[in-house]
């Protein structure tokens, strides 16, 4: 990668972060539009984005954010209240920025739909704030205009000079300290278009810095079509009245490529003229507030401030984490080495203890580098909730808990899509279709969606709850039979029945109405979460609501595992799946021909899976009541893994397997134990892929 490409890659990453933050901040500002600190923050982000976009030739993005920045700058410097419909424009602008960024990155020739419209609205807004009269063409089309415009239309006898004079008088009344008033006359030669000069180009340049700009085109010499030459300028004169903070020389710079006879700039002094009805003032313009002096929160100051963070490639973090993993293994090896332990030397013992503590501390700190609060992800979900709420027309209240809960950065990136899907499902299909339906059953008209994150037994749980109609268990069960997902003979818990809605093919267009859409794409969500070594649990009470809980490991690099031994080999069962472990009573163990062994416990029949059989280990066959059963929850139901003994519980660094072992679906990875031995991590879902438990009877 060349230096230029590296810099560009950094820009793209930074721009992505800025836009992501904008998306969140703009919603916060929508909630509290008097938070001008936040508006400053948004402005700074947009300002940085503009500079970077232009530096890398992303001119379409640069142009858009340039005008958006103007609007933000106006509000932050005047502290003027932002009108509600303008807040909508702000939110819409961030959407456009996101889309334009994609267009720029993918080098797409077309701009996103709504780009021009949104940009025009921004320009109109800023024009109104600069006291340039606003005419919304759409709204006034075809209507006669009660202002100067009507005097210039077809059939108007007034001379151009008169109306220019009127405009000058109007602008003199608007003149204030720090502003200069000029009359500019453009008399471009007929070949000006061929030379690349157009009146509008100059007006646009003047408009960039103008407080007000009004121009008058003399069309007298435009010929009829048979004599008309489109590439020749037929506009003999354009007079513009400009109110600007620029000096005459600065204004003249705009015309430096014109011939001297093609332009004239005349400064106009202020004149005390009482305001008359003819003064054109934007209908939407608000009274100006005292300008706020730029302070330390200006972009320049911000950019020059010392930074307290540095940017590190996550690949380097992964490398660091791997190295620390090796360190932990080496430290465990020393700590558990029998020969070292047999040395009766207090200083060696203390040194090993110190090494162990330091290693643990380093491991924790390196781990924390990968951990980020889930706040940003939740903030993004606020937008999803807002948009889905608007789209469905359902009024709802969002409750967010546990935003500070930290989660592995790698997982955060993969979590957004499943979370968005579940939230949309909860709003669209979980909540009742209208307020009346809710009120009828004694609920508040406004629905509630609750987003929570919390730690539970060494895992992280992210849940989405709705207080809607809940899932009809019976209908799900019957539908699953109809779809051939289950036979109907299975003995399923409530959670397993609800889990059926996440099976591929459960929900289709003709699904029963009150469940419609519940299964659409949920199988994809389930797969995504399982890729993160997590699982989804569903709880629902009909009429009260539904909760989807994503149970995830703290990190993808380390797993909390239960170490078990069978036939002299150590295996690791992810503790996330473990329900309980015990030595069974002989009475609860049964065997059926063709069905294998199972245990009856608390009304459930749980199949027994001998680990030694799964991996074809040669060992003396013992009875289940002579061994240990570890009950685990799998996607196909609960199973009891039979092992010889429990070794302990330990956090292990996951190591990828080689190609030959990777084909074994019963194993997800490996780990090096303190003894230096290798242990395989079990994929419990593959230990028993089908529901085979007998329906009843022993």
């Amino acid at each position: 990668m060349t230096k230029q490409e590296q810099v560009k890659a950094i820009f793209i990453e930074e721009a992505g972060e800025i836009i992501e933050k904008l998306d969140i901040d703009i919603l916060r500002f929508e909630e509290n539009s008097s938070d001008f600190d936040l508006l400053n923050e948004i402005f700074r982000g947009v300002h940085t984005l503009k500079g970077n976009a232009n530096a890398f030739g992303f001119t379409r993005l640069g142009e858009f954010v340039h005008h958006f920045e103007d609007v933000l700058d106006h509000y932050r410097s005047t502290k003027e209240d932002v009108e509600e419909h303008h807040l909508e424009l702000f939110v819409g602008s961030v959407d456009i920025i996101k889309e334009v960024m994609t267009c720029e990155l993918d080098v797409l020739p077309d701009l996103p739909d709504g780009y021009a419209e949104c940009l025009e609205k921004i320009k109109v807004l800023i024009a109104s704030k600069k006291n340039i009269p606003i005419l919304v063409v759409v709204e006034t089309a075809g209507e006669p205009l009660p202002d100067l415009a009507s005097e210039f239309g077809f059939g108007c006898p007034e001379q151009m000079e008169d109306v220019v004079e009127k405009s000058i008088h109007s602008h003199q009344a608007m003149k204030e300290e720090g502003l200069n008033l000029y009359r500019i006359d453009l008399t471009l030669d007929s070949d000006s278009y061929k030379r690349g000069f157009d009146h509008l180009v100059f007006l646009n340049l003047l408009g960039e810095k103008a407080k007000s700009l009004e121009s008058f085109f003399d069309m007298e010499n435009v010929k009829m079509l048979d004599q008309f030459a489109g590439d020749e300028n037929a506009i003999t004169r354009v007079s513009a009245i400009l109110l600007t903070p620029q000096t005459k020389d600065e204004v003249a710079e705009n015309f430096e490529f014109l011939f001297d006879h093609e332009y004239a700039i005349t400064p106009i002094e202020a004149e005390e003229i009482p305001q008359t009805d003819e003064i054109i003032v934007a209908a939407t313009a608000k009274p100006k507030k005292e300008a706020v002096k730029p302070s330390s929160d200006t972009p320049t100051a911000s950019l020059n401030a010392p930074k307290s963070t540095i940017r590190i490639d996550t690949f380097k973090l992964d490398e660091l984490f791997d190295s620390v993993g090796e360190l932990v293994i080496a430290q465990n090896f020393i700590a558990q080495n029998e020969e070292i332990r047999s040395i009766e030397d207090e200083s060696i013992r203390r040194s090993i203890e110190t090494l162990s503590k330091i290693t643990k501390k380093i491991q924790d700190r390196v781990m924390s580098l990968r951990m980020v609060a889930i706040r940003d992800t939740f903030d993004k979900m606020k937008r999803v909730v807002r948009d889905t709420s608007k789209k469905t027309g359902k009024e709802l209240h969002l409750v967010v808990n546990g935003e500070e809960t930290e989660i592995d950065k790698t997982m955060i990136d993969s979590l957004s899509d499943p979370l968005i899907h579940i939230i949309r499902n909860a709003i669209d299909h979980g909540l009742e279709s209208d307020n009346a339906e809710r009120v009828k059953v004694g609920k508040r008209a406004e629905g509630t969606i609750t987003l929570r994150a919390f730690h539970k037994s060494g895992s992280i749980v992210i849940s989405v709850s709705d207080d809607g109609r809940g899932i009809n268990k019976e209908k799900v069960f019957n539908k699953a039979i109809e779809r051939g997902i289950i036979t109907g003979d299975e003995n399923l818990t409530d959670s397993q029945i609800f889990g059926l809605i996440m099976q591929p093919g459960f929900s289709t267009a003709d699904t029963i109405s009150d469940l419609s859409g519940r299964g659409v794409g949920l199988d994809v969500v389930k797969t995504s979460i399982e890729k993160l070594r997590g699982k989804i649990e569903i709880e629902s009470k009909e009429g009260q609501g539904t909760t989807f809980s994503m149970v995830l490991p703290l990190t993808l690099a380390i797993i909390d595992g239960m170490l078990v031994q069978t036939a002299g080999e150590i295996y690791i069962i992810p503790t996330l799946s473990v329900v309980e472990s015990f030595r069974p009573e002989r009475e609860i163990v049964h065997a059926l021909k063709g069905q294998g062994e199972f245990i009856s416990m608390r009304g459930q029949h749980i199949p027994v899976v001998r680990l030694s059989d799964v991996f074809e280990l040669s060992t003396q066959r013992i009875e289940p009541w002579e061994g240990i059963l570890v009950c685990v929850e799998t996607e196909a139901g609960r199973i009891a893994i039979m092992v010889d003994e429990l070794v302990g519980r330990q956090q292990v660094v996951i190591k990828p397997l080689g190609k030959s072992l990777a084909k074994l679906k019963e194993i997800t990875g490996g780990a090096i134990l303190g003894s230096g031995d290798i242990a395989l991590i079990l994929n419990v879902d593959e230990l028993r892929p089908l529901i085979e438990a007998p329906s009843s009877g022993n």
Partner: protein
Amino acid sequence: MQFDGDVLTIGLDMSMEEIREFEQFIRPRLEYLDTIEIEEGGTLRSSSLLSLLVSLKRTRPELKIPFLERGMTTSGVYGTLHWMCHD
């Protein structure tokens, strides 16, 4: 540019090249047109388009060009723009 029956709808933000194409398109069709409408949301990019519209109106006065008849347009970029035809 959209042609729907007697009404031709054009965008204001045509480039010089597009204006020339529009001119070539409309010259042989001027007699059949009833109205020229302007798409919403555009911003005038070239005074050449304004000249062409004035020329069309001058050539066929019964042609309706509501935009031109308003005598002015506004934009956040170039403020208020008036045109005077002396007709």
